[in-house]
């Protein structure tokens, strides 16, 4: 097996880390929560950072009319399937394909990951803006529009008494590493190809 194919094999396997580790974490800090509330997002689940956190996030959020964080969303089926399919494709490429295919897989993964992030953004936006008209407390922005409570996609943001942090976790790093590795596989493969062509 060529060196570049071995690297590609690694690239294809790395995203499977998403099944072991969380993709993302949202943390909510407030004076009343010396231990912040937190939620891990796995590709197939939402999980408490500490016991009962999601229940308590829901309890906080119901005052401003936000919907409960659902037990399950369709993405929990689609994302794992997507990862499995792309891994299988990656494996086939690693064993059968040449370096050009590594680049195609890389592009595929970039596109799919971006789509996933966009989907996450849409859900967050809906979660933060689609509020119950009978909400207990209604807040408006300085310009008179309804205040939204969307947590940041990436980074830190103040939302009323909470400071919300949203950052990728180990699972996301596995995915990113896998994608990056496929690019390396491509570059190594390309270099080797050139070398052989030169000979």
């Amino acid at each position, binding site marked *: 097996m060529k060196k570049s194919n071995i690297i590609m094999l690694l690239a294809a396997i790395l995203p499977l880390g998403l099944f072991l580790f969380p993709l993302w974490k949202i943390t909510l800090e407030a004076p009343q929560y010396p*231990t912040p509330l937190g939620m891990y997002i796995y590709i197939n689940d939402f999980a408490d950072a500490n*016991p*009962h956190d999601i*229940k*308590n996030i829901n*309890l906080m959020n119901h*005052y401003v009319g936000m919907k409960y964080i659902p037990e399950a969303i369709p993405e929990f089926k689609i994302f794992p399937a997507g990862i499995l399919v792309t891994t299988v494709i990656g494996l086939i490429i690693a064993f059968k394909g040449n370096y050009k295919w590594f680049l195609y897989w890389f592009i595929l993964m970039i596109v799919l990951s971006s789509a996933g992030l966009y989907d996450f953004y849409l859900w967050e936006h809906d979660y933060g803006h689609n509020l119950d008209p009978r909400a*207990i*407390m209604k807040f408006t922005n300085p310009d008179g529009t309804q205040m939204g409570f969307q947590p940041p996609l990436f980074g830190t943001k103040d939302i009323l008494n909470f400071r919300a942090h949203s950052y990728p976790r180990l699972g996301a790093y596995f995915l990113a590493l896998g994608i990056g590795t496929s690019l390396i596989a491509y570059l190594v493969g390309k270099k080797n190809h050139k070398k052989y062509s030169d000979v």
Partner: protein
Amino acid sequence: MKNILKSIAALVTVLIAFTSCNDTKKSDSKSGALASNVAEKVYVAPGEHDEFYAFISGGFSGQLSVYGLPSGRLFKVIPVFSQDAEKAWGYNEETKPMLETSHGFVPWDDAHHPDISQTAGEIDGRWVFINGNNTPRIAKVDLSTFETTEIIEIPNSAGNHSSSFVTENTEYVVAGTRFSVPIPQRDMPIKDYKGNFKGSLTFISVEPEHGHMDIKFQLIMPGFDYDLSHPGRGKSHGWFFFTTYNTEEASTLLEVNASQNDKDFIAAVNWKKIEEYVNNGGGTMMPANYAHNVYDESTHMATSTLKKEVLTVNPLDVPGAVFLLPTPKSPHGCDVDPTGEYIVGNGKLSANLTVHSFTKMLDAIENEKFAGDAYGIPILNFEDVLAGSVEQPGLGPLHTEFDGKGNAYTTFFISSEVVKWKLGTWEVVDRQPCYYSVGHLMIPGGNSQKPWGKYVVAMNKITKDRYLPTGPEVTQSAQLYDISGEKMELLLDFPTIGEPHYAAGCPADLIKPRSKKLFPLEENNHPYAAKSEADTKVVRDGNIVHVYMTMIRSHFAPDNIEGVKVGDKVYFHVTNLEQDYDVPHGVSMIGANTSELLIMPGQTETFLWEPKQEGVWPFYCTDFCSALHQEMQGYVRVSAANANTPLKWSLGEDIE
């Protein structure tokens, strides 16, 4: 400019010299707490935690208070023997059985001597035991919830005072009677006390896993007053020591008649020997009547069981198990040093402090050097067991604790001071006044092989002018001394609840990590729990109505109920659905002849309401739980006894 700086520097130097000079003087006088370095020693910055927990008995309040040391801040009053409307202790249906006794519901007691459980001679921070003095009981407080989870009544006992001290692996918690009484109780002339009344020393086994208490045996002793006790430890593990007074066996004017003998006794009990005797079938089962009350954390309910017999042991049936050590003048405290060698008898009417040697005691027993006997129990010679005495250390010695560094600290009630002295050499090292008339004292881990000799807390009987006056009844108080150096230093006065008797303390780290934050809802096995709003309902059974109610920020479910009638007995079973730290809810009903409920997350509690008037009656949350706390309320419609209003309930919509 330079000159000015120089002179300022010189002035400061002089001031420092003066101040430090003053400090050394002050530490010998009573105003040591004025020095700023003293204030720093007790200052725990906002948000910081104290280094030690102190569990201070509430005396005639019947409760146990939880303080932090060195700050002297009160964190909690744990209801034990007295009803507490704030926490619904003894008012809600779940905890009423905890205060049942063979005399019926007794809503008060006199709580004296807390002691923390031990493993291998060291404090383990799992439970605190405390005695009810008046209607003899021993309670166990679970230090994961800081709640009383078990109370056992002691039969054949009266004035349960030489209690509740634990052996070094918490094999037993021991309860000795203060009053001797007819055993079994019977109608007889009081004047026939002598020779007929008996004193019981009760050994309550503690099941190692859950701490369940059970009376293993009662030693039926001569009719003295058994005042205080402490277990042997280390080399003397397996023995228990009890001070006695009124060996004169007087039944009237004891202040005179019980102060005649030059020496009373410390009773040394080899409980291991008696345990073996009992395990081999020894002892006499005697009819008795005593309550055993157990709180189950999973059902959040207590049950009370009346037990009908108790195993008694006659000390004469177990030769070599009980000996009497003559000890001058009505000894009060009976304290054993961390090595287990020295047994201090604090002869409260004696000028000297008597210390017995365990080794010498064993030697005297082995050589059968007896001075006589009392009702067949061998009396050892005073000189044969004496390790030494502290000569004229003060007036009215009551209690002694140890710092683990070879020093002992004794309180003197009459001369109102704590005296530090050295074990072995018996020399007095230091003395500090107490304000005023000190009783017990406590060094964290004091009743164990491993005291943390950093602080001693002295608990006073009188405060007089030490605090702002509050009418004829002024606060009770404790005083904190730094004992880390050669000389003691008074750091702090702080008020206490009720009257503080003994206390028990230990490093916070032993308890803090195990302190529960909430009760998991899925582990709630209360028979009337509603674990979600979908489970809420109202059920009528004759004139008894059960309301299965829930509470969560910021509403009750249901919050409208109709169909209740005058003369009904309405049980509100209320479950707090919260699963967040420090989010209790309260509930109270207008006119209910009981207290509010204060319900912790995941817990279910019940109160009884017997509506007497037609109308629409509100209930509300009593604990400011959330921004919408004031909205957390509801109504119950009460119709006439013969009305046909259907039983209906709702949340968020009208009852049609």
